[in-house]
């Protein structure tokens, strides 16, 4: 460490030690459990410090243990363990000893949404800095107490050690009744990366043991005394109006109230099954005024072109031109969305698996008329979401029911068909490409047009984005906007192509849409990387070499070279094929190259994925197994989207109501997976949770072509290849 930095740092830290204040008491002590904090609902709210302050992110508890407070959510992506690792590393304390509190408007920073693979890039880096600042303060405080220079003192495993006598003092003894406070210094010196013990290692996730033991972990598992169970009757189709409902429902066993507000209808009962029985009665006996709002669509490529207008591209001089399309696809969380809400004396508390507690709070404020300070949203783990699923909507539903029945905890879980029919889907898209090749096989022109609806209708303060708000007596207006937005993600090819032209066309599609894992990147990369492989064939080049020849970014080349090395000796028999896909996510984040090997049996109409490989460079990898897990899962999920998935609807309703109507990959078609990480500890972390989606889609489609000679440009593959 350069001495000048160190000297300055010590001065800064010493100055900061004034910032230690007699805080009075420690943060409320719970039985300290590593991993996600104990029932988060039991922690009382606090005055949340500004994000520049150490204790905004990190507290020392009464027993000397360390609590990290993140404004992000655990979605299954491994956020909790990564936060433990970065904090533990700076404090020389094993990660499993660090307790993590997830996003909570009563406790944590407003970090917006947990989305876009940004949690490592931003939140984890703040936690890293807060932990380093806390360590500096502990050292500085011990130096004062022992009248030693700071280089004679170390922090190790939750203790402060004086090196001259090898004496130890616990954080608790050192701090007495004080809490760490103060600004995180700008010029903070972080632990040198070459000294890392835990960051960059495959540290197990702390919640995994609770998961395999079946312990309470999810919002679905929260139970409160005298909790009331609720269900909501969703309209049959968008825009339907409730005209009557069977009043005898109110006399059904256990039913405590039926709540109607316009076309929003919910039932509250003492027991969950009583609520489900009452919902059945409501469903059978209610009457709705419905139109037939949904169009007949034969081909999304045709529909989107007609709705958004043609590209006007003249492809006469192009070497190759092609049109690709994807249908609406679902998040399809295995656990339907769930929330618990309690309203009493003007205060509303909601427990939710939303990806954004603060944006949800402002939207609930708009919905209910309650001031934001009278609403608390506590983030609790839920079933994997992969974007904006029904989490926010169910929280709004629970809030409406709780306010109609104050004083009790109201638990609402959507039924399977609610989630399937009412979640906001990933938009259908159309992609049109045209390019020319030079005589030596270089791309000399590139035109790309895409058609899409928007890719985020997340609640950002407008109640209208919460679907039930549009059905209330005094309905909130929903403004879907008129921009493709995230649909343009990765529409620009990450290759050396002179004068590439890209244009988007907005289409207001028929179905509800919002953010689905990787937004438009999935379809754009599917199209670009399918087209690249088609061009490589026209150029007579190996598909990976063709990509490498168009890449001047050495990190692109490195992942492509490694993928070539992993797959070049892989044998393929008759009916089998290997295809590839590559992208740099958002063109600024992780580099990921994917290969898929699969078997196509045209007579049996069956595609069997055999193996998928990925090579990923996510900059500094915090948790190597976490990144592998995300990348393996991303490939399998994208293979499922690509081969099988399509939201189906008729004029009156979405008919993909369950897993029979919306099949996803089952175990008979799960590929073996192999992920290779190119770790670059010296570089910033880039976030890898969405990097595999697009490359995997193209790899699958390209492998289908390699296996059977059929080029599928409209998804899902299985609906179009046979």
């Amino acid at each position, binding site marked *: 460490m350069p001495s000048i930095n160190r000297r300055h740092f010590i001065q800064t830290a010493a100055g900061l030690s004034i910032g230690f204040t007699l805080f009075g008491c420690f943060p409320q002590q719970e039985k300290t459990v590593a991993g996600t904090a104990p029932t988060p609902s039991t922690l009382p709210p606090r005055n949340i410090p500004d994000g520049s302050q150490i204790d905004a992110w990190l507290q020392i508890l009464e027993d000397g243990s360390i609590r990290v407070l993140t404004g992000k959510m655990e979605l299954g992506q491994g956020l909790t363990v990564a936060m433990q690792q970065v904090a533990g590393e700076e404090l020389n304390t094993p990660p499993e000893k660090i307790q993590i509190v997830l996003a909570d408007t009563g406790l944590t920073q407003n970090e917006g949404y947990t989305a876009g693979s940004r949690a490592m890039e931003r939140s984890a880096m703040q936690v890293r800095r807060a932990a380093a600042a806390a360590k500096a303060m502990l050292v500085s405080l011990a130096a004062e107490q022992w009248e030693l220079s700071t280089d004679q003192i170390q922090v190790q495993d939750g203790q402060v050690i004086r090196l001259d006598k090898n004496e130890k003092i616990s954080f608790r003894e050192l701090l007495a009744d004080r809490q760490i406070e103060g600004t995180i210094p700008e010029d903070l010196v972080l632990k040198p990366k070459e000294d890392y013990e835990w960051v960059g290692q495959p540290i197990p996730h702390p919640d995994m043991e609770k998961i395999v033991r079946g312990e309470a972990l999810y919002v679905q598992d929260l139970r409160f005394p005298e909790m009331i169970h609720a269900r909501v009757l969703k309209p049959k189709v968008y825009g339907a109006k409730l005209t009557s409902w069977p009043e005898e429902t109110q006399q059904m066993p256990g039913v405590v109230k039926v709540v109607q507000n316009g076309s929003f209808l919910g039932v509250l009962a003492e027991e969950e*099954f009583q609520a489900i029985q009452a919902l059945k009665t409501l469903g059978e006996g209610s009457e709705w005024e419905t139109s037939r709002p949904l169009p007949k669509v034969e081909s999304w490529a045709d529909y989107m072109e007609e709705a958004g207008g043609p590209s006007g591209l003249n492809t006469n001089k192009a070497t190759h031109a092609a049109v690709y399309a994807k249908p609406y696809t679902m998040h399809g969380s295995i656990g339907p969305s769930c929330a618990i809400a309690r309203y009493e004396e003007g205060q509303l508390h909601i427990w939710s698996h939303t990806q954004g507690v603060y944006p949800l709070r402002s939207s609930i404020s708009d919905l209910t008329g309650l001031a934001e300070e009278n609403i608390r949203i506590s983030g609790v783990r839920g079933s994997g979401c992969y974007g904006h699923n029904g989490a926010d909507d169910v929280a709004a539903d629970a809030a409406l029911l709780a306010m109609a029945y104050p004083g009790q905890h109201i638990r609402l879980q959507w039924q399977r068909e609610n989630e399937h029919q009412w979640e906001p889907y990933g938009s259908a898209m159309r992609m049109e490409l045209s390019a020319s090749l030079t005589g030596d096989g270089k791309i000399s022109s590139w035109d790309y047009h895409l058609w899409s609806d928007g890719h985020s209708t997340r609640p950002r303060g407008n109640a209208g984005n919460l679907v039930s708000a549009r059905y209330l007596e005094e309905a909130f207006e929903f403004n879907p906007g008129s921009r493709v937005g995230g649909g343009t993600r990765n529409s620009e090819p990450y290759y050396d192509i002179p004068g590439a032209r890209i244009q988007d066309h907005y289409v207001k599609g028929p179905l509800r849409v919002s953010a689905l894992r990787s937004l438009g990147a999935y379809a754009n990369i599917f199209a670009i990387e399918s087209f690249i492989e088609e061009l490589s064939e026209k150029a007579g080049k190996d598909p990976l070499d063709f990509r490498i020849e168009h890449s001047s970014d050495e990190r692109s080349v490195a992942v492509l070279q490694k993928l070539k090395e992993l797959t070049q000796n892989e044998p393929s028999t008759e009916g089998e094929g290997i295809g590839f896909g590559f992208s740099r996510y958002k063109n600024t984040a992780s580099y990921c190259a994917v290969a898929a090997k699969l078997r196509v049996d045209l007579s049996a109409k069956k595609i069997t994925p055999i193996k998928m490989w990925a090579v990923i460079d996510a900059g500094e990898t915090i948790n190597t197994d976490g990144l592998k897990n995300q990348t*393996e*899962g991303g490939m399998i999920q994208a293979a499922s989207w690509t081969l099988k998935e399509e939201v189906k609807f008729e004029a009156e309703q979405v008919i993909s109501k*369950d897993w*029979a109507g919306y099949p996803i990959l089952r175990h008979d078609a799960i590929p073996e997976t192999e992920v290779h990480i190119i770790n670059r500890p010296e570089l910033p972390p880039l976030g890898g949770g969405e990097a595999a989606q697009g490359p995997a889609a193209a790899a699958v489609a390209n492998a289908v072509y390699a296996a059977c000679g059929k080029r599928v440009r409209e998804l899902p593959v299985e609906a179009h290849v046979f």
Partner: protein
Amino acid sequence: MQSTKSTTQLTVNGKKNSIDHHPEEPLLYVLRNQLGINGPKYGCGLGQCGACMVLVDGQPALSCIVPAGSASGKEITTLAGLQNKDGSLHPVQQAFLEEQAAQCGYCTNGMIISSVALLNQNPQPSDAEIRQGLQTNLCRCGTQSRVIRAVKKVGKEI
């Protein structure tokens, strides 16, 4: 409307319970809400996804569609009941932990229950037999390749 309830004697994880429930009530709600058991999860209510699975007399059962009354006199084992008396993990739980074979973990209950049932019947299943044994269980995070690795690991150890 009348509230007619049935009473069923349920043996869950070795413990006998007398439960009053609606005659049509699926086992899932009784386990979760009356006995406070968290392993089995509501996923679809249709027997399509496997998140609700428990063992009934050693066989995998979809508790979201099995009426509670039909489990009378049978041995029900849930995920929490798999561990040994000293709290140590069942080999399948241990293998899932070692392979970190979950992301969100909502489906893990069913994955482990199916795997235990399979391995009890067939201690060294082939790749195809493992896939067949897990065919009911859906995972949206895409952790199935890890799940298969975990089951193979136990198969090898037995």
